[in-house]
C-alpha cells in the first residue's frame, strides 16, 4: 500500500471564515496529490459551522470527508480513496 501524506491544517481559534477559505486553498493547491490518493488534508477546527460547510464544499468538488471529535475541536479529513480502510 502506498504511503499517504497527511497535510495538517490547524485553524482553531482563527477568525471566520478562515476555516473554509484556508481549507479550500489547501485542497485546491494539492488537488492532484489528493485525487491520486498520495495526500489527504486533515483540518482541525473549532468552528461549528465549518463542520458542515467543509464537507459540503469539498463534496461538490468530488472529495470524500469524515468528521471526528478530537480534544475540544473537530477533525475533518478530506480525501478521495479511503486508504485507511
Amino acid at each position, binding site marked *: 500500500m502506498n504511503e499517504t501524506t497527511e497535510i495538517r491544517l490547524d485553524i482553531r481559534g482563527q477568525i471566520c471564515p478562515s476555516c473554509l477559505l484556508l481549507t479550500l486553498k489547501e485542497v485546491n493547491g494539492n488537488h492532484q496529490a489528493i485525487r491520486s490518493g498520495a495526500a489527504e488534508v486533515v483540518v482541525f477546527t473549532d468552528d*461549528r459551522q465549518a*463542520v458542515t460547510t467543509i464537507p459540503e464544499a469539498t463534496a461538490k468538488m468530488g472529495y470524500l470527508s469524515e468528521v471526528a471529535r478530537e480534544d475540544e475541536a473537530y477533525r475533518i479529513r478530506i480525501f478521495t480513496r479511503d486508504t485507511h480502510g
Partner: protein
Amino acid sequence: MDNPYLLIVIASAVAGLSAGFVMHRSDFCVAGMFRDLFLFRNGFMLRQLLLLVVVSMVLFEAGRLTGLIPPGPFPLLGAPALTSVAGGLLFGIGMVLAGGCVVGTLYKLGAGSLLGGVALIGMVAGSALYAEWHPWWSRLAAATTLADDVTLPQFFALPSAALTLPLAAVGALYLHRHYRRGGLSRPSLALGHIAPWRAALVLAAIGFGSYLVVGMPLGITTAYAKAGAGIEALLWPEHTANLAYFGAEPLNYIPPFAASPVSGGAGPQLDAIAAIQYPLITGIVLGAFISARRVGEFRLHYRVPAVQYASALTGGLLLGAAARMTPGCNIWHLWGGVPVLASQSLLFLAGLLPGAWVGTRLIKRFVIR
C-alpha cells in the same frame, strides 16, 4: 410594579442567556450570513435570517392587532436619514473584519474566542470615540433627514398590517419554495447542533418576548458606548463630562409593566439602558459559555496570526462607531426595525449590503491568506 427595573433586568438576562445558547449551538452568525453570500455565493444562512424577519413581522403584527404591544413604533427608532446608510456601510465592513457582528462576537467570546474579546474592546472604544464627533454627525443627520415618519406604513398613512402582512406572505412563499427543495436545512455533525431554522424561530420568539415585557426588541450597542463612557470618565473625567452625547437621554418611555416612565442614555450612569442592555450582553456571553461547556468545546484560543487580531480590533472599532452613527446595530434593525418596516432600518440595510461586500474583499485580500 414598584420597581420597573427588576422585571426588565430579569427579562433581558433570560433573553440573553437563551439567545447566547441558541446562537452558539446553531452558529447563527449574522455577519457570516452576509459575508458568505458574497464570498461563497451561499445564501443558506441568509435565508434563516429572512425566516427570522418574516416570523417577527407576523408576531409583532399579531401583537399589535391583539393589543399586546402598542400600535406605534417602539422607542429609540428615529426618522430616516441618509446618515443611516453611511452607518450601515461602515457597520457592514466592520462586522466582516471583526469576524462577527455586535452579538456574534459575544457568543464567540463566550465559547472561548479571544478574537471575539478583542472585537468587544474595539466596539466599546469605537462607541465611546463616536461621542467626539456626535455634534457634527447629528447635524448631518438632521440635514439629510428624508421624512418625519418613522415607519413606511406611517409614511404612506396605511395601517401597518396592510404592508407587513403582504410582505410577510411574499417572504413566506419564497422560503416555502426553498423548504420544498430542502434548502432550509442541512445535516450537521457538530455536537448538540440546533438547526438554524429552529434558532431563527427561537430568536424571533425571544425578540417578541422582549417587545412584550421590556417594551422593545433586542438591542445592545448603546451599552457599549455606556461602558466606554464609564472607562473614559475614570481616565478623563472632565472631558467625558463635557461630551454632549454622554449627557443626552434619548430613551424615555413607560415600560409595559411599569407605572412611571424610565429614561436612559449613553452616559456612564446606571439607568434604563443599563438595565436593559447590560444583562442582555452578559447573558449572551454566559449562554454561549454554558452551551460550549456542555458540548465540551470551550477552550481559550489565542495562537492566531497577528493580522487577525488587528482585523478584529479594526472591525470592532468600526462596528462600535457605526452603530452609534446609524444609530443602532444589525440586531436592533434587522430583527426589530425591519419587521415593523422602520425606514431607518431599511436604510441601514441598504448600506449594510455593500458594506459587507467591501468587508469581504478586504478580509480575503489582507487578513486570511
